[in-house]
């Protein structure tokens, strides 16, 4: 059933996301064409400034839409989740023969897919645009990236542990995005309890949850720092160990971030499903 929930959430939200991708694509093409055309315009006409203004505006809109696409996709997923579970659509969503946990998990996974598609499209558009319009800047960026990669892969510090750390780091990033989506879903599930102020309550829930998470993270960091710094010798040993094994430290940090995000995601899914099971306020 999880596969079905995932499939139909992908399908149900496809049109909206496709439209957004289309808008970004159109802005990308317009900006590219305008910039290429601008290069052909004689300098005396360019000097008037109108063509440069139009090009600049199209470029701003293109980069802005890319940023918005990347940044707001998880928020859009939350809006679609709200529509699906707390409005009239909920009459279908909640009468499907699936558990609430499966429902929330399926929708979170679909959200994760859309967030990554948005990320890829947003970055690809920005990168291609930069490569065409500002080739020197792009080449310099690329050269720096290549050099960094070369140094990393050809230095003594390049160990299998570093490769594993990078993989764990990427997984931790994926888990972070997944947690973000689930945090939004959790807030929506909690917010819909209040029938007359569903959206406001969702925002309040988001602020409260974020504060709790910040507090817990701060508490753990503080406890860890205190445990080390209370003994100066231990602190020195720890710093020496960090300097000697940067790959291991990176692995541990990535692993902790990954586990935290998986743990928080599981907790958020649990809270969402239990809240939806306990109380539903459909329109």
């Amino acid at each position, binding site marked *: 059933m999880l596969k*079905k929930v995932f499939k139909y959430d992908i*399908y*149900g939200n496809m049109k909206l996301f496709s439209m957004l991708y289309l808008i970004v694509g159109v802005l990308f093409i317009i900006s590219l064409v305008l910039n290429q055309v601008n290069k052909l315009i004689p300098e005396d006409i360019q000097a008037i400034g109108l063509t440069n203004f139009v090009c600049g505006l199209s470029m701003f809109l293109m980069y802005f839409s890319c940023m918005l696409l990347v940044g707001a996709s998880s928020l859009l997923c939350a809006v679609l989740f709200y529509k699906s579970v707390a409005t*009239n*659509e*909920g*009459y279908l969503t909640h*009468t499907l023969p699936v*558990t609430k946990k499966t429902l929330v998990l399926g929708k979170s996974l679909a959200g994760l897919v859309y967030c990554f598609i948005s990320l890829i499209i947003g970055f690809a558009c920005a990168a291609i645009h930069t490569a065409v319009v500002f080739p020197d800047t792009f080449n310099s960026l690329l050269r720096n990236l290549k050099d960094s990669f070369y140094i990393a892969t050809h230095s003594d510090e390049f160990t299998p542990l570093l490769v594993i750390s990078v993989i764990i780091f990427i997984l931790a990033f994926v888990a972070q995005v997944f947690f973000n989506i689930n945090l939004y879903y959790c807030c929506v599930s909690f917010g819909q309890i209040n029938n007359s102020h569903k959206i406001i309550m969702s925002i309040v829930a988001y602020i409260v949850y974020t504060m709790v998470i910040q507090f817990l993270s701060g508490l753990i960091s503080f406890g860890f720092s205190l445990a080390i710094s209370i003994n100066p010798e231990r602190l020195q040993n720890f710093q020496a160990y960090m300097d000697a094994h940067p790959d291991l430290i990176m692995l541990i940090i990535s692993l902790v971030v990954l586990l935290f995000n998986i743990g928080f995601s599981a907790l958020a899914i649990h809270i969402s499903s239990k809240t939806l099971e306990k109380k539903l306020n459909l*329109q």
Partner: protein
Amino acid sequence: MEQLLVSNHISKHYGAKLALNDVSFQIMPGRIVGLLGPNGSGKTTLIKIINSLISPSSGEIYINGNKPGVESKKVVSYLPDKTYLNEWMTVEGLIKMYADFYENFNPERAYDLLSRLNIDPKMSLKKLSKGNQEKVQLILVMSRKADLYVLDEPIAGVDPAARDYILETIISNYDRNASILISTHLISDIENILDDALFLREGQIVLYDSTDNLRTTHQKSIDALFREVFRC
């Protein structure tokens, strides 16, 4: 014969307001039951409890021996009193979705009913008129071979011709071993198809019997009895 639905002393509070008060009744298989009452009598609350959309404050309800949940949702086909489908989806997509989620869904029946209405399955719901959207919802619900059909105000707010179509679709498509719980306050339109009538007032059952018994006992039509019981 085993009861299809058993409600034991169901009560539901919304804050201080008591929406259902100690409601107990049973529905046997193969019956068409009218859930009758004025607005605010608790019909929709009862229907939501049956469909696991809300939990009762006290009491228990069983459908085929199961409490409302995943198992009961497999055998209950529910038509809410609202348009509830994702407007971005095509009718065809919705049929596939229903077929995927409900093992008892019959896509052929759905396509057949759609063709009779000349509704193009490739159209998205957004492009259909509100009336046709409601008909698509009804078709999806009635294309399931469910044990219990729960229809919340299916004929409210529609013209007499559409009303006839809706009732005909319900009657000609439900499984004879299945039961239908149909809520309405338009009694005269459905009186002839009802086997049983359950009168609900202020969250309490005031009458529950077969329509034949009610007519004989009270020497009145169900519509006339409704007007008498719920006179303002």
